[in-house]
């Protein structure tokens, strides 16, 4: 076995660009999926029955599908259904956002449900509107339980961005596998890819542990 690790250094610019795309995808997906997840959760909890049922169906459907299938589906089916051709990046982002929104909606719903009903009743008895009571009384308390879950969803999402490589989004996994195919330096490139993910993901996983300890709710 002769190994040539210089191939990793030679392609540092491409790998760096791929890493940047991975991070952008993670941040952009979360930026979409947090507000959307909140809306879906509120629809599920307080909207008119048929709308609530629709929101529930959406959440249950996407939580029970492999993300990679959603990615393929978005790539092949979305352009036909909508008639709009999106770039691979936008397609990947849509698939990730559809998936994470469903998870976040469930997180928000569970967080809001964990606050006793009396809190909402009391706030409304004091003359607040329902929206106001939610915003001022229920959500601030629910946030303590929601934040740690959002943090671990973040780490899962960071890893899941690698799945959009199957539709040629030039993020880290795709870039590394492209270089592997061009240079035939299989072991070096795949190991480098794993190490880069590890370097980025390990501190995030540790940060999540810290957030979970910091916000632990003892009953």
């Amino acid at each position, binding site marked *: *076995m002769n190994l040539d690790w210089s191939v990793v250094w030679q392609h540092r610019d491409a790998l760096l660009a791929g890493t940047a795309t991975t991070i952008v995808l993670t941040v952009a997906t979360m930026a979409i999926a947090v507000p959307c997840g909140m809306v879906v959760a509120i629809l599920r909890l307080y909207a008119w029955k048929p709308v609530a049922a629709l929101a529930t169906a959406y959440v*249950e*459907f996407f939580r*029970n*599908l*492999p*993300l*990679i*299938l959603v990615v*393929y*589906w978005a790539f*092949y*089916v979305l352009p*036909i*259904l909508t008639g709009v051709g999106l770039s691979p990046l936008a397609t990947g982002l849509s698939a990730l956002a559809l998936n994470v929104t469903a998870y976040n909606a469930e997180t928000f719903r569970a967080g809001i449900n964990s606050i006793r009903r009396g809190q909402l009743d009391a706030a409304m008895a004091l003359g607040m509107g329902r929206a106001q009571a939610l915003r001022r009384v229920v959500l601030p308390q629910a946030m303590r339980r929601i934040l740690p879950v959002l943090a671990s969803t973040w*780490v899962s999402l960071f*890893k*899941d*961005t*690698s*799945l959009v*490589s*199957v539709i040629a989004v030039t993020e880290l*996994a795709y870039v590394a*596998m492209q270089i*592997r195919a061009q240079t035939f330096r*299989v*072991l070096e490139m*795949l*190991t480098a*890819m*794993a190490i880069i*993910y*590890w370097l*980025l*993901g*390990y501190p*995030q*996983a*540790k940060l999540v542990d810290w957030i979970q300890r910091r916000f632990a709710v003892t009953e």
Partner: protein
Amino acid sequence: MDFDFTVITSHARFLGSGIVTTLALSLASGLTSLAAGLVVALARLYGPRWLRPVVVLYIDSMRAIPVLVVLVWTFFALPIVTGLTMPPFAAALLGLTMHLAAYAAEIVRAGIESVRPGQMRAAVALGMSRGQAVRRILMPQALVRMLPAFGSFLSITIKDTAIASVIAVTELMRQSETLAGQSFQPIEVFSFAMLVYFVILFPVTRGVDFVYRRVAYLGRS
């Protein structure tokens, strides 16, 4: 827009073999990673002191690296290291087990740690060895408490097998992708695949929750 779902019925055996492979890979990797996870968790909790940091590093690393990366590395890079080529199914089983065992280990650890320490002390005070106490007193209570987590673990396992399509395991995702490409009918094929995954996954999570509600009282102490 016209839909023609005969593409599904005319390729029923092709897609059916994919479903069988998906189920076989899910079952196999679920079982091996549960067994491996149990060993890892016991090593973390009761193993020799020098072993614990190694185990923690392994678990946290698997939380940091995408399963796609683990699978691709196991299939393409590992044979270069070992000199042994593996068929895709075996590589997928190995890669998924490496990845999922870390999750299983965390579930087992959380379950065991949720049992109050007094239970262990009481068992030891009654003359049991630590191994006996873990086996006879802690585990039975912990297992019941782990049930809901195992439900989501099983669902994660089934979803992760779809990623094995990347290393050419001919499971449902791979078969659907091939058929979608050949028939130029991606809408019908992928919609069918979505339906199948949903029909497999939805009852798994619901079923485990149902069983848990029935046996939850056994886990109280």
